[in-house]
């Protein structure tokens, strides 16, 4: 029985006048990959942003490693070694790939101070990052940018990876590469919270799953169970996995 690394209890989030999250209860077990599924507008991105402190929860509690992080600001949360890959990727296009990576490596003041072995591992997962090392990140293709975004998130060891729709807008071949990378990450024991709409991701990566709808989590369990139950899939997601 693995402990829970991240817990959300009764979290409500308002954005201006809009009440987006209506009491989210979510548990992320340590060392596993949890997928957050749901239709567009269900509140998945809002949940991630609330965890990261980009939006303040108006009610409820977010606990990380036993510590209440609900009121912390974003830099403080990131300092706890939670890495966030937003839907928009957050790539700094005017900076080179190297500079993007260096920025994410908080302990390194110069590129030479980054962990060479770790970089090697990252290059093996995402060859494009090595190939375009000195090029402005803006020149990369969509898929390559996405890879850079994930590479950045793991440039140093992190406790928790929060990734928002990494496969969005990518070609199927690239998506497969992405899935391979995540599979390797999962195998390495990193805790991952992944928001995805792509079916293949869900099928191949497995793990635990939570489904959101209308700002609440309506189902939580193992991916294996959900994969068996097509009726449940239909009702929750409107489609079969």
């Amino acid at each position, binding site marked *: 029985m693995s402990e829970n690394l991240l817990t959300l209890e009764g979290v409500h989030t308002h954005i201006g006048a809009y009440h987006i999250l209506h009491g989210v209860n979510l548990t992320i077990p340590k060392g596993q990959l949890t997928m957050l599924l749901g239709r567009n507008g269900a509140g998945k991105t809002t949940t991630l942003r609330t965890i990261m402190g980009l939006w303040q929860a108006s009610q409820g509690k977010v606990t990380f490693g036993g510590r209440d992080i609900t009121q912390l600001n974003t830099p403080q949360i990131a300092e706890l070694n939670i890495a966030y890959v*937003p839907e928009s990727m957050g790539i700094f*296009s*005017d900076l080179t790939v190297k500079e993007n990576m260096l*920025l994410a490596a908080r302990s390194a003041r110069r590129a030479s101070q980054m962990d060479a072995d770790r970089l090697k591992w990252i290059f093996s997962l995402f060859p494009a990052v090595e190939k375009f090392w000195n090029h402005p990140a803006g020149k990369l293709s969509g898929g390559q940018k996405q890879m850079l975004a994930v590479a950045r998130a793991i440039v140093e060891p992190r406790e928790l990876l929060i990734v928002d729709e990494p496969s969005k807008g990518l070609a199927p071949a690239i998506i497969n590469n992405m899935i391979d990378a995540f599979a390797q990450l999962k195998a390495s024991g990193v805790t991952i919270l992944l928001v995805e709409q792509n079916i293949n991701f869900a099928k191949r990566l497995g793990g635990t799953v939570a489904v959101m709808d209308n700002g609440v989590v309506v189902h939580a369990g193992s991916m294996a169970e959900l994969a068996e139950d097509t009726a449940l899939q239909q009702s929750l997601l409107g489609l079969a996995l």
Partner: protein
Amino acid sequence: MKTLDFDWKPLALVPLLALGIFPFIGSSSTWITLTVAGLAMGMIIFIIASGLTLVFGLMDVLNFGHGVFIALGAFVATSVLGAMSDYTQSESMLRNMLAVLPAMMVAMGVAGAVGLVFERFIVRPVYGQHLKQILITMGGMIIGEELIKVIWGPAQIPLPMPEGMRGSLLFGDAAIEKYRLIAVAVGLLVFAILAWTLVRTKVGLLIRAGVQDREMVESLGYRIKRLFVGVFVVGSALAGLGGVMWGMYQQSVTPQMGAHVNVLIFIVIIIGGLGSTGGALIGALLVGLMANYTGFLAPKVALFSNIALMAAILLWRPQGIYPVTNR
């Protein structure tokens, strides 16, 4: 900063203007004098504008009161230089420097310190609200100007150039004022330091990234708000330095000089693109050159020429010559 296909076109604007105006001026010696004067003025403007553009680029804060640091620096210099008259009267450049450098340092220190207070009490409470920022920073400038009048009096004060820096060097027929060469040198030094910091240090990296996407930098674990205070203070200190140099260029200081230079600074950073240091440099050089060329050819249209320049650039690139992406 960029590899391969670097955006070189804006850089070409400066020589383009300088060469294009030549036929109108006629004599090459006059042209040289005017061009150096323009570059010197441009460099001083750049020193002042660099802080403002970074502050806006990084934190989306529009400081309409930036002019107060200019005036403050200039007035502080009058006091310091006034107290060191035996150094300034000397013909030796070295002894002059021994007065001017401390004056600059003190001016920068005071401006930076006031900048710290300004950020804390005037700017910080209105983050994210552009309208209030415009109003309040203007209010801050009014208050600052009046306080300057309280301390130094409302009248214009002369700021004579140290003896050793007076006079011109002759290059053939062209007379180039010594001070202008110094100004260009100082400006280039400031630019070099800024560029080095931005490109080669992690802090610089943070600033460049923050200008593009502040939220992502915070998500990577950096407290960008603290960085901002630092940038604001440095920007104010630079404005103070620019004020000292501007004062010496004009050989006098008035409490309103801040408001007057403010307009030029805004034109410069609009031309350059809000948030771009390189753009500010090019914009400042263009404005400086334009002011001097039109001052010679058609003095009445001097201020308009800068606005016309701004309009022309905006028609070409509506966000300025080096717009910062993701804005």
